[in-house]
């Protein structure tokens, strides 16, 4: 259920690498329970913006707030503990581990509600109840029958699903998906879309995607980035009809029609 409380907010968020301003004074607000799509041409600063939200880089200017708390310089692991969870543009799982082991860390994450430190260092990682938790996460993705394969043996699509399973098992309050459909076949895109559709009511999420048609019915709001700036935001149909958006995103050629 959407409420008025902003779960995440940036004020003039900026990151500059030498002469390149990757994110340029972005003001972004997201309400709890909202689903937002971030689009823009290559090099627009979408992933850099994700990196600022999740703490991979700290902004060179501006502020970031999570549920009203200033998290501008909070490191990534603490942001995860707060509930800010992400996936990566290039699928990021641990190829050298068995599939099920990819989920051990997320399901065993140390916090007052989780496992004791003694068990973390000395307990068997594959205790029955722990493996069951991992299997539940894999079942949600439909890859539980591959749990004991080496991750390197999985197809790219299954790795995407595994990455999503890891992200979901971290109990996110806000999930940031960086091009979750990249490199997937149409069938796999359909499967992953369906999974996102099923879980999206549980938390807020932001999704970067080039294929706008794949996210248009997943999100309530679209944000368009260009050259590090947020140039437009609003309901998808409205944003896609914006003349500036159409010019920077599709150039002079026609992309999607305004009726979308």
């Amino acid at each position, binding site marked *: 259920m959407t409420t008025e409380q902003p779960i995440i907010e940036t004020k003039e968020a900026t990151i500059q690498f030498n002469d390149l301003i990757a994110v340029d004074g972005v003001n972004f607000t997201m309400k709890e329970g909202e689903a937002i799509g971030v689009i823009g041409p290559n090099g627009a600063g979408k992933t850099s913006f994700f990196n600022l939200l999740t703490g991979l880089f700290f902004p060179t200017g501006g502020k970031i707030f999570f549920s009203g708390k200033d998290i501008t310089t909070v490191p990534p692991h603490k942001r995860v503990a707060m509930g800010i969870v992400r996936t990566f543009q290039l699928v990021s799982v641990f190829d*050298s581990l068995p599939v099920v082991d990819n989920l051990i860390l997320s399901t065993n994450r140390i916090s007052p509600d989780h496992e004791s430190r003694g068990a973390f260092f000395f*307990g068997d990682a594959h205790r029955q109840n722990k493996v069951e938790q991992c299997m539940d996460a894999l079942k949600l993705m439909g890859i539980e029958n591959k749990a004991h394969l080496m991750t390197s043996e999985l197809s790219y699509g299954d790795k995407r699903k595994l990455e999503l399973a890891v992200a979901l098992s971290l109990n996110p309050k806000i999930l940031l998906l960086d091009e979750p459909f990249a490199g997937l076949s149409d069938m796999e895109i359909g499967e992953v879309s369906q999974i996102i559709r099923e879980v999206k009511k549980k938390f807020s999420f932001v999704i970067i995607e080039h294929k706008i048609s794949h996210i248009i019915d997943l999100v309530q709001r679209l944000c368009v980035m260009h050259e590090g700036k947020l140039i437009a935001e609003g309901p998808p149909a409205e944003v896609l009809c914006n003349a500036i958006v159409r010019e920077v995103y599709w150039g002079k050629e026609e992309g999607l029609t305004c009726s979308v």
Partner: protein
Amino acid sequence: MDIFKTGAGRNLLDLAIIAAGFLVLLPVLGINRTTDFIIFCVFVLGFNLLYGFMGRLSFGHMLYLGTGAYAVTLFSEHVSQNPLLAIMAGIAAGALIGVIIGPIIVRTTGACFALINLAFDQVGYFLVLVAFSKYTGGEDGMSVYFSKMGVIDFGQKPIMFGFALLCLILTYYLLKKFTTSPYGILIKSIKENETRVKFLGYNTFIYKWITFIISTSVAAFAGALSILNYGYVTPSFIDPSRAVEVIFAALIGGSGSLYGAIIGGVIYMAISNYLASYISRWEMFLGIALLICVFRFRSGIWGFVAGKLKIREAA
């Protein structure tokens, strides 16, 4: 047998295999050399936790071995000649140096990590050889005396052998517990992609530091055992040029595996002890062995054998 399919049963089987292996080597190598081999294997296990499991290659691990060796010596000289207390002092010194220099070292990766360890080892070598030579005996080193503990006299070779084997088994067991726990998965994940681990909610700095401390402590333990075995210490225990020994052993045996570390330790010691008797420049053959491993057996001898036999080591 079903008992060996349980976690405890498999651990027991592992420990029995290691003990049996060295007991088989005993009549072949003789008690002195077998004890040497065992102690070196403890050192390789400590090094391998850092390199094989967490992917951080140290060129300065002799510093931590030497810290244990000199700590035992100085403890025995100035505090107590009780051998067990002295060994504990050696381990504590190894942990302490890990606590102190760890925060500087674990911030680095790759070549920088390897070389910063080497730099600290160079400093340690200088301190032992020159700056603190009044206390360390400088180039000549020092003899060490330990008291008897009732009927237990570590000067008697069978007792020393048994004790060293017990220490190796204990080290193996502890490292096995570590590496099969969620912490073990964490450090293996750091080896593959540290950034990703941060985004699973873990402060990787702390875990890298802890791993470094465990590794320096185990190396110091090996150093302490060496002194208990030899009864003297020299700067060769901290000599940076000897760092290559433990690296070769880990690579030949198979880094990232506890069995691999032990097999590598035994093979390295066998080459360096026996080949040296016949060929003056035996190091060339060590180089060739390493080249074969790099090009043919990327996961080391144990990794190759385990792959052929389809053994997936839990560690």
